[in-house]
């Protein structure tokens, strides 16, 4: 095997769509890791959804043999990183497995918020940055502007920046050479095994396949190893690397990146960021930076057809095998039946999970209004973490409530700065700082409630910047906010599926919106039925369901009965899909109408 000085571990950080996967593919072709004839677009993105959305969710490390200009052969380990805000912890662990990072910027789009965030992460990890402008072949490419952005905001001198076209292959050779020269080789500090877990996947046949970077020591099949955070001991079944398919090897050495298959069958037993060491001679300390990732956004996920519950359960279990950040607890709603309370890292994560369930598994789902984790301080001095309106304590026992905040970085053409500032204000945020990225772009740093981000901030940002604005965020503590549980009553009975936790100032508008939508979606009823929005028993909005004055067929004799029954059968089929709340049949469409739409 190569000596340490012939190993380069690096990743590519880029905004969504800036060509990361294309560049990775180009590397694979150039190093003959994969042959042209078996080449498939974006080999690294295994999942269809990723290909379709151009979003990489999971990272796959790939090993390449690169014959350099100096006549030596190098081992390149390319670690593909997820490209979205929700996965920043996973990104940070992937970065921690590297010594260098290629910073890829689209020549036509320039530096985006995502890029900023990831560069900052990479710099904090002490990674060597290789700045690259991609898509220089595009007619819309504006290389000088990109160079200016690099200088201005990232303090990267223009002469360090490489120009490539991953699509045509131009500049790729130079980039690979730069990896050798700029990215330092790994430097083990001890003989005691320390390997960083930066991801894992679940393979139906192999069980949990852990992706690891061996920082110190060696790891081989048959050894007893220990997962540092959980102190779970297990046996190594196989080690190897991806090139691009799985290639078993006898052992993985210090500085190398590869996979480890153990006797562990439960994905949640292996945490990203954990340290693998030997059970016999364990390391004293874990590698730095481990966090137990926990979901930040919660929502109830229900099948529209209650008969689909078992299928939903099975599919959620399948998804969780490959997405340990996604959590799900069985939950049941009077209105929606049996379902799951699910936790997500963020809005995109929630979107991705929902889409995978509905597309890959063909499920028709309904999601309840998303919630964040509120810190509810009670008058008795205790604090409760609440992420579900059902468990919100009685308002009379609450002293105050704190909501999670985020610090957002928004990059946009300067033209839209006013729009963004207004949006931030509208979303209860404050602008902390505005900086120029270049002559045409600004970077706005704002502090906002996470809940607002979860609802519709992205969509609105895109709208008010004509699609040019981008943003990234990180958690930024908690802040007191007048927060209430809004209940929706139908005929005096609360409908659990419509309950939500929201800001007091937003409650009336939201209650009105829901009441109006419900009024239109609930068919006329025999009796006067009120739809009310209420906070702790105080009614803040009301609509009345249209009243049905009669429901009768005038003519029905011997010859009409069969026909009539068939008509009624149809009506009843419709009724089956309704939920009865407070003696009122609420059609499924009403739930969908209320829950699927954003505010306003």
């Amino acid at each position, binding site marked *: 095997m190569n000596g340490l000085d012939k190993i380069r571990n690096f990743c590519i950080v880029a905004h969504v769509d800036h060509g990361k996967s294309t560049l990775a593919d180009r590397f694979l072709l150039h190093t003959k890791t994969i042959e042209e004839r078996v080449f498939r677009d974006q080999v690294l993105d295994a999942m269809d959804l990723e290909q379709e959305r151009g979003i990489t969710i999971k990272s796959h490390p790939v090993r390449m043999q690169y014959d350099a200009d100096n006549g030596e052969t190098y081992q390149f380990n390319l670690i593909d990183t997820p490209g979205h805000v929700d996965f920043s912890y996973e990104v940070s662990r992937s970065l921690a497995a590297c010594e260098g990072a290629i910073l890829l910027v689209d020549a036509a789009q320039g530096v985006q918020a995502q890029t900023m965030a990831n560069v900052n992460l990479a710099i904090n990890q002490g990674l060597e940055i290789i700045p690259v402008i991609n898509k220089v072949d595009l007619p819309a490419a504006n290389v000088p502007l990109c160079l200016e952005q690099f200088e201005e905001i990232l303090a990267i001198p223009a002469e360090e920046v490489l120009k490539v076209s991953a699509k045509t292959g131009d500049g790729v050779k130079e980039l690979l050479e730069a990896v050798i020269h700029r990215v330092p080789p790994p430097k083990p500090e001890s003989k005691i095994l320390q390997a960083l877990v930066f991801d894992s996947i679940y393979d139906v046949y192999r069980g949990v396949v852990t992706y690891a970077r061996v920082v110190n020591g060696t790891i081989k099949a048959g050894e007893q190893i220990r997962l540092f955070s959980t102190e779970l001991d297990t046996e190594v079944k196989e080690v190897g690397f991806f090139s691009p398919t799985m290639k078993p090897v006898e052992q993985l050495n210090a500085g190398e990146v590869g996979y480890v298959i153990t006797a562990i069958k439960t994905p949640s037993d292996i945490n990203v960021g954990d340290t693998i060491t030997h059970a016999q001679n364990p390391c004293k300390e874990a590698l730095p930076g481990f966090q137990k990732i926990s979901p930040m956004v919660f929502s109830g996920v229900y099948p529209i057809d209650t008969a689909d519950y078992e299928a939903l359960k099975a599919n959620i279990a399948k998804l969780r095998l490959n997405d340990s950040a996604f959590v799900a607890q069985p939950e049941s709603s009077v209105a929606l039946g049996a379902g799951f309370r699910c936790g997500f890292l963020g809005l995109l994560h929630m979107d991705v999970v929902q889409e995978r369930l509905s597309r890959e598994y063909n499920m028709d789902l309904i999601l309840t209004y998303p919630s964040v984790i509120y810190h509810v301080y009670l008058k008795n001095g205790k604090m409760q973490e609440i992420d579900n309106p059902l468990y919100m304590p009685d308002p009379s026992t609450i002293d105050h409530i704190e909501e999670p905040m985020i610090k957002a970085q928004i990059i946009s053409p300067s033209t839209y700065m006013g729009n963004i500032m207004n949006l931030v204000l509208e979303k209860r945020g404050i602008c902390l700082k505005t900086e120029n990225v270049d002559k045409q772009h600004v970077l706005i740093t704002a502090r906002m409630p996470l809940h607002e981000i979860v609802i519709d901030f992205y969509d609105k940002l895109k709208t008010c910047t004509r699609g040019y604005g981008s943003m990234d965020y990180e958690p930024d503590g908690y802040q007191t906010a007048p927060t209430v549980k809004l209940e929706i009553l139908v005929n005096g009975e609360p409908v659990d599926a419509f309950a939500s936790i929201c800001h007091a100032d937003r409650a009336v508008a939201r209650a009105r919106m829901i009441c109006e939508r419900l009024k239109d979606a609930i068919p006329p009823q025999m009796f006067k039925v009120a739809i009310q929005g209420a906070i702790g028993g105080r009614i803040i909005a009301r609509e009345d369901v249209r009243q*049905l004055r009669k*429901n009768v067929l005038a003519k029905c004799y*011997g*010859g009409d*009965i069969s026909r009539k029954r068939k008509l009624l059968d149809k009506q009843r089929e419709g009724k089956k899909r309704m939920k009865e709340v407070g003696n009122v049949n609420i059609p499924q469409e009403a739930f969908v109408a209320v829950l699927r739409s954003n505010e306003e």
Partner: protein
Amino acid sequence: MEGVQTAFSLKRRAPTALYVHVPFCNGKCDYCAFYSEGCDWDDELQDMYLDSVLAEMTRHGKSCETLDSVFVGGGTPTVLHDLAFQRLLQGIRERFDLSPQCEWTVECNPESLTEAKIDMMGEIGVTRASLGIQSFNQSCRKMLGRRGTLDGLEHKIRVLRHAGISHVNLDLIWNVPTQTLQMLEQDLNRALDFEPDHISAYALTVEEGTRLAERQIEADDDTFVEAWDLIEATLATRGLHRYEISNFATARGRCRHNDSIWHGAAYLGLGPAATSFDGVDRWTQPANLRQWIGGQDPEIDRIPPLDRAAEILAFGLRTVEGWNLVEFRNLTEVDPIQLRGQQLQKLQKAGLVELDKTTCKPTPQGLLFNDSIMIELI
């Protein structure tokens, strides 16, 4: 179905009611969804129809019980030419065993109801005439696309009574677009002036395939409930009381034929588009004269016995009297409470059904919301 044995079966019963469908009219009215050949017929076709329907009578006559009621409907039975009309009535008289009190109704169009036909009806033993008036108001008649005139109606009703046909029903249609409550009240009073012992007052239903539907006419339900109450109150002043959703009669004027069918009686239907029921299955002849003459099989409506029993229960609740629980049990051999107790209680709570130890009947509200009862029970 808890408490009810799963091997439950209903008994097939011999018909006690006969319906004969006459598929001819002098043209089709815009609201009518019943099957008829319209005006596309001649005497020869009527004779062919008569041959077939008489053959059917011969075939089925023996399998019927003594009949409690006969209903000749359509279409317009009175557009048959005189000989055909006579063959039809005579055929029924000869091929079936009619009970001495047998109610025998013939639907009549006032225009084609000649004195000759009235005489035949009287002689052969028809007891009841049902006259399609629909409305006395010209603008309503126009809106409905109602054919013919009502000239000489008073005289014809007098002749009917003179011929011994003492029971007279007048059909009215209300909730007609542009019809005001005042116009409705006038219609009701005009009808009452003829002193019928029965009035059928149907709220306009625009049915698929009718010319009204083609004309995109929609019934306007704004004053539906007011009209519903007005009809009930106005007719009651002359002793005609609601006994079914759309039917009003004096104590002795009820249509026993329809009343028995709402209460689960077995009936034989002859002629194209006619429906029969034997207590278990229901079947309907092809709604096409030539196909029917050609012997095409009827369409069979077969559902599980317990569902059928529930259907019988539900349709009985179209009548004001509803069900005597013992009678229902005698008819179907299943206890209505075991069958649909939970649903009945729910309907009771909703104020649609009155339920006690002996009876189960719709409340006034339960008549207005009869489909809600149906949905729950069927």
